[in-house]
């Protein structure tokens, strides 16, 4: 059970709704609720904003494909034994 109560998208301000729309586009998936991590990152835009932009820069097109980078991300998550 999460340490905090995860708010629904409706409980966030309008600026966060734009972030949730970007999250849907990023994953190309229509979530019933934005992923928990998206909602966590939207809690404090002062942290979530630059953190998200750094992630997008790292995951964007380059020498490796987005798919390859998703696999690297999965490997890092697995090695960190992160269930999420």
């Amino acid at each position, binding site marked *: 059970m999460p340490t905090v109560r995860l708010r629904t998208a409706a409980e966030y301000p309008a600026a966060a709704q734009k972030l949730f729309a970007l999250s849907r586009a990023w*994953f190309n998936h229509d979530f019933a609720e934005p992923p*928990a*991590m998206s909602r966590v990152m939207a809690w404090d835009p002062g942290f979530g904003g630059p*953190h998200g932009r750094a992630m997008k820069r*790292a995951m964007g097109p380059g*020498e490796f494909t987005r798919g390859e980078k998703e*696999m690297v991300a999965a*490997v*890092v*998550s697995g090695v960190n034994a992160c269930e999420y």
Partner: protein
Amino acid sequence: MTGDAIWYEAAQVVGITNALNVAADGLGALGPVDEATTPPEARALLAEIRAFYGGGVGPPGFRLIAHDPAYAAEVWAAARHAYGDNGLARRFKEALAFAVSVTTRSASGASFHLSEMRRLGVGERGVMEIVGVTQMFSSYTKIADMLQLEPDMGGIAPVDPTPAPGGPAA
């Protein structure tokens, strides 16, 4: 990156990379084999490893476990299979091994796989892409763990219905 086969390949790279890093980082007290005095089968094995790595010495762990050449040969057979071109290219597998090494704080593994990435043609931009992904997801995972988030994205990946290699279709 669909289909389970490439994920099995990635898992092999993760496992064998960690195994070799464990040896390289933890078995220094054994000392590397001395090729001048080691048995011929160990010399042949190390020569095969050098050939696979374009003349370089290969993962440093092998010179430590080569004190038992028969054991090292089996580990090498698994490693060669895991790191070779298959569904995933060798160049990308070195990037995975680099990410594993950085994440597990294996300085020797990170150094070795960084040099292999470069040898296989990954430029500085590509290196920094892998550094960025590794670092950012090292952050996401710890935030998720701290807040004990429950998985909620498993459903976006398609299920691969194909059988195991050589197995009958369900």
